[in-house]
């Protein structure tokens, strides 16, 4: 298993660099002038050219890319053109917030979504199933920014249960995270509930479940010990996918609640053509998604032992003929 993990991590490296190349190419060839953003629209021609030279924008595309990668390999992600601060410092500031948002949102999604999905499956076509279907439909149809604002209006302004703004420094208290986590989670929960429900329904109808019941196992044991574990694989895939995406920043949630994480940083960097900051953010996001996918694959092996053989090279038995 360890060999598998190391192999996957090594494969991740060229993947991340491949992504960085594509993104760098897009940034280089799409319209938009980073120098104009830096110097303002009143810059004169001489200064404009001097700035282009300073940023290396007159160099060929491949030269610029390789210079950038050379920096990355020596630990230098460059300086933000917009903020004039090291890209690493900007990422260090925003990553903890994004990580917290992702962890809380996914955690809340699991805490609420899994039980609802299980109950919907076990009590298929009951009032609970219908209610959860309706609720998930409403949640998935609701625009995130609207939901966020409505939660702020109700719980921060009217009821004053939670703060309306995020502190300018630090990570705030748990109360600062409740509304953003609920907002972020809402869009993902519907798919988790529906996926859990459908995989549980599939598993519950299996022969071994019938056997377990026949052997006298309680319904709770049948569902939680036998059925759930077998229904978990697609759920784990979904959780991993959502977590990875959230590491790219939940921009709408971040903007509404003023939690300026990687998403906000990345979008502003793209708007201002701040190439070093975009590249640094993308490298981070791509790496996160790759690592999360690896963790999901490893988790598969723990959930379903039958899959472990895929991750382990079989040992040759002595004397076995080839």
């Amino acid at each position: 298993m360890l060999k598998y993990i190391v192999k996957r991590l090594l494969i991740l490296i060229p993947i991340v660099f491949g992504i960085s190349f594509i993104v760098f190419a897009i940034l280089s060839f799409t319209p938009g002038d980073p120098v104009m953003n830096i110097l303002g629209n009143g810059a004169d021609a001489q200064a404009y050219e001097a700035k282009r030279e300073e940023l290396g924008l007159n160099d060929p595309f491949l030269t610029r890319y390789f210079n950038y990668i050379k920096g990355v390999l020596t630990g230098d992600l460059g300086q933000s053109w917009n903020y004039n601060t090291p890209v690493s410092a900007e990422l260090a500031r925003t990553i903890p917030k994004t990580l917290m948002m992702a962890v809380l949102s996914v955690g809340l999604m699991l805490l609420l979504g899994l039980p609802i999905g299980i109950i919907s499956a076990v009590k298929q076509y009951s009032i609970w199933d219908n209610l959860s279907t309706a609720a998930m439909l409403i949640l998935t149809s609701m625009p995130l920014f609207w939901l966020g604002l409505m939660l702020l209006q109700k719980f921060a302004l009217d009821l004053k249960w939670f703060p309306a703004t995020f502190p300018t420094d630090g990570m705030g208290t748990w109360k600062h995270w409740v509304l953003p986590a609920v907002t972020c989670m809402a869009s993902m929960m519907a798919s988790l509930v529906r996926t859990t429900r459908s995989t549980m329904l599939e598993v519950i109808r299996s022969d071994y479940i019938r056997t377990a019941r026949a052997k006298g196992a309680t319904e709770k044991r049948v569902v939680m010990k036998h059925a759930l574990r077998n229904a978990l694989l697609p759920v784990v895939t979904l959780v991993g996918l959502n977590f990875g995406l959230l590491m790219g920043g939940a921009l709408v949630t971040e903007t509404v609640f003023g939690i300026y994480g990687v998403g906000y940083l990345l979008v502003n960097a793209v708007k201002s053509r701040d190439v070093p900051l975009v590249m640094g953010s993308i490298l981070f996001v791509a790496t996160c998604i790759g690592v999360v996918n690896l963790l999901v694959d490893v988790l598969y092996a723990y959930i379903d032992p039958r899959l472990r053989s895929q991750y382990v090279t079989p040992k040759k038995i002595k004397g076995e003929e080839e």
Partner: protein
Amino acid sequence: MSMLLAAVMVLSMAGCGGGETNATAAATGGGGGATSGETSGGQTASGKTDLVVGITRGITSIWPGGENDQGTIIMNNQFYNRLLKKNYTTGELEPELAKSWTVSDDKLTYTFELRDDVYFHNGDKLTAEDVVWTMNEWHKNETYTKDYLVFFDHAEAKGDTTVIMHYTDVYAAALESLSFTLMGILDKSYVLEKMGDKWDSSGNAQSRDVYGDIEPNGTGPFQFVEKVSGESYTMAANEKYFEGKPAFDKVTVKIMSDANAALVALEAGEIDALSHAPSSDKMAIENNEDLVWYENADTPYLIWLMLNEADEHLQNPKVRQAIAYALNKEEIAIATTDGVGQVLHSPIPESAVGYAAPPADYEMDLEKAKALLAEAGYPDGFSIEMKTTSSNTYKKPSTVIQAQLAKIGIQVTVTEVDTYWSDVAAHDFSLGVMNLCIYVPDADQALYPLYYTNQKRNYVNISIPELDSLLDQGRGETDLTKRSEIYSKAQQIFHDEVFMIPLCNYAAIIAANKNLKNVEASPVFAWNISEWTWEE
């Protein structure tokens, strides 16, 4: 296993973060406390000492000459002082760092006597050398401030408190320009020591680049404490401020990209003031007894339509006049500013020195517009592109104009481009909306940089010798009556040639908690936070 994982994640919420920051605590304290235990970390027996101001715009720079966006203006007004300041109520220039000044008879030499009790935030005493160095460096480098040092040649110090500024020609707005918010005086020794070899003495340094990332050090009522890129700026009261220490010990300016969320924060009391509150929220704020809406509609923050004669359709003045006749400016003003702004009839702000009443404006007359189009050879109209940015400031008026021009047969395609500014600078557009704040409200600043031949902001790329001549005369004429006559003639050219159509202006808006006193909406967005107090 997943349930266990989820439970661990949820339980970990309890260990999140630390205590409240002073800013949030103070803000919730002022508003009645959003949650238990979050009251007034910064509140003293005499009242609030910490203030949180939200702003719905970005802040590009906290250095003079670094940029000219409104966020930069607001911050500069807290960190720096200028030689003079403008009283926008009386229209008079008043002393600030300079306690008095004289102008030579030929109006080429300005002598300023500086106050002797001014210190920079790091303790350095302000001397004439700082002023001289600041002015000379700005003039040498390509900063925004240079554009306001018209005909400036050099400055020299005489002793520690006398500054003599020499001009090569008479500039009517010389003193007015020195009151510009971005004319804050720098500490020479501090800047050179911090920048070292990075200080560009070649004269090629540009606006945002000039000072690198060193912390500001001015003489203003507040001193820099901390900056979180793209999020907030924290500043502390200057204990030794020569006009008296501000009421608030600490002020945090918080950038809030979502205006709706910002309004909720203001209503919840978590921010004490909201700069650039959306005009669409005026009614909601005025109906809230805990909030006050401050507005100043007499701003030099102008919005106009540019008509580029490089487009073949716009080469005929009759077509341009037809467009002017087709526009309903009231409708544009309401759509663009939610009714808070005023319709404009002149390219010169009414509050500007040298303002002259413009000729009678084009009143909407669709039949006349169609007749002019027919005379110009377009009886069935034509198609034309109008570029815009994604910002509502540009998009809203563009879409209204599109609908209005359709009524006379001109099919406008509104194209949103990321390259709007570079396209406009390269004159690569046909129709386009522009908005700029004329921070030094003087007729010269409203016209010369935008319409004189080959000026870098002459976006419509016009070259009218008669207009150039009038603008040259206007900037050198100090007699107000004669200036008005000159600009009156200039406006006739604007009216006849129609290379730009003034539309409306944006009001300066700030919404605040009712307990925040002495708040005034400065027409140039230079909020005087040092004058604000808190009274419950």
